[in-house]
């Protein structure tokens, strides 16, 4: 596989998974920025396990997921049903805490970062295929789960919370439990992504996990569409890949283009390019096409 394609596919997968990690709590209206901190916490922990403790990658990956889940669950106990503002502040706080702790911990490289993560699977080619397989396995698994969630009673309840939290509570829906569930899942996913992200680069540096990442993920969700998972499936590869094809003179204005695109979409199509209605329309169209293929022949027979 060509190397540029490998990096494009893997980084797109991470961006997609992380966008989903933000998408899930946002179904209830929570901007759960703590997922960026989770990436860093789990990523650095896994790297430490592999480099310093000589533990296998698979164990480190599992630990990354579990650590993400643990952090997400504990925090969610406090903010599962908190107002959006509180959730935003929690996210910022954890990002600052994580960065400062890592900066001051020489065991994980401190400000220098961690180098020389080994290949998973022995050779560079095996490493690449393994990471790619894990990432796209996750994409399909998580995508399936979110798809099922969106069509379930839970998903409808989340949508109701997004629209009117008080009314939803009065209908007997336990908002806190739902918040805990979504936030924990989101943090679990982010933890695993953090580990995989570092193994793509075979290194960890604090600047991989900055507030800048929030900007990218928000753009993916809001431009792609935040009412359905398909929005991010479209936006993640396009927003990452298209600027790579720009000529240098235009590529240098990439951030301005992202910002302008974000504004345009919010103003003209606030729910993003891919909305629930659009997905239903496509779904109905395909169903109709499959059900009625022989209409013209029947008319001839009647005559």
């Amino acid at each position, binding site marked *: 596989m060509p190397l540029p394609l490998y990096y494009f596919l893997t980084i797109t997968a991470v961006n997609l998974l992380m966008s989903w990690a933000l998408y899930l709590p946002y179904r209830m209206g929570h901007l759960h920025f703590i997922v960026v901190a989770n990436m860093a916490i789990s990523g650095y922990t896994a790297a430490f396990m592999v480099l310093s403790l000589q533990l296998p990658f698979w164990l480190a990956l599992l630990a990354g997921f579990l650590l993400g889940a643990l952090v997400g669950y504990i925090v969610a106990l406090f903010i599962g049903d908190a107002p959006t503002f509180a959730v935003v502040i*929690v996210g910022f706080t954890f990002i600052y805490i994580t960065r400062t702790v890592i900066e001051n911990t020489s065991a994980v490289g401190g400000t220098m970062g961690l180098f020389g993560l080994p290949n998973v699977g022995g050779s560079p080619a095996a490493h690449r295929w393994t990471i790619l397989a894990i990432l796209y396995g996750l994409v399909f698994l998580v995508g399936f789960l979110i798809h099922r969630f969106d069509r379930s009673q839970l998903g409808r309840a989340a949508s109701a919370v997004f629209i009117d939290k008080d009314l939803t509570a009065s209908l007997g829906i336990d908002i806190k439990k739902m918040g805990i569930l979504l936030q924990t899942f989101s943090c679990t996913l982010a933890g695993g992504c953090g580990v995989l992200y570092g193994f793509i680069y075979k290194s960890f540096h604090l600047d991989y996990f900055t507030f800048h990442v929030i900007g990218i993920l928000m753009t993916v969700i809001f431009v792609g569409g935040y009412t359905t998972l398909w929005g991010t499936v479209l936006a993640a590869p396009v927003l990452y890949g298209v600027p790579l094809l720009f000529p240098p003179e235009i590529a240098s204005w990439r951030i301005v283009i992202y*910002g302008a695109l974000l*504004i345009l979409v919010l103003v003209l199509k606030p729910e993003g390019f891919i909305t629930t209605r659009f997905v239903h329309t496509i779904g109905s169209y395909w169903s109709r096409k499959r059900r009625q293929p022989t209409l013209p022949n029947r008319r001839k027979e009647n005559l």
Partner: protein
Amino acid sequence: MEVFIAQVINGLALGSIYVLLVTGFNLLLLVAMIIHFAYPQVVVFSMYIIWLVLGLTGNNLLLGALAGIASSILLNLISAPLFQKVMEKRAEVDINTTMVLSMGIGMIITDVLSHGFNKGHPIAFPETLAGGEAILRVGLISVLPGQVFSLVVGVVAVSSFFLLLYKTRPGRAFRAIAEDPNGARLVGIPLLRTGLESYALSGLLGGIIALLLSVLLGSASPGLGEQVAHKVLAVSIIAGLGNLVGGLVVGLFLGILEAIVQGYISGTWSNVIAFVVMLVIILAKPNGLFGLKL
């Protein structure tokens, strides 16, 4: 004791920066129901315009100030229809949509500044604007004219806007169109004109803040807005969204807290400690210490 007093004064100086930015932020919230996350970037843009005009006019302070105010008003008026379009179906503040929209605006401003001004290098304001001997110096205690001026203007701005918004007719009109445009129209408030006036007012404040920050900081860089944006949002949330007096108190408190932590504990942990304190407050009082004023 001398060190403690010096740090408190430093904290007040830092806090006055937060107070100024939070006041402008809260004003937009009160008159337009907007969470303008990129408000600090708008102010920094105005600082750059002031610098540019000062350079072109041989340090003419009046022209520089007017240019800064004009640019801030213009940016606000340009972004007004974008926010209004996004807000038109909602009767209450929508942190998500307006925050994301303002993030987009912030991304554009920061990138334009790093591309198009001074080849991306930080800018420095002339000594005549930014300088000045300390008006009080006793050992480590030092008080600069700019610090006093910023703090005083911050307090005056909060008081003035409080009076304007809550005790005058135009102020009530601004709040009315923000909270209930249809109701405001019914009682005869001209929506377009009042809306534009409210945006222009916050632009005016933004320009004044830009000028004060130019005096206080003496320099600016493209990333300056982003550096303070999180804290400005946090202060506003902790104080209570739209609460002008709360923003003043919490802004100064945050400045003093940061100064004390940097002075007695550690510089790199100051953000962590500040945010943890704010986190504890917001979990205990989700509507802010002083309550929402929307």
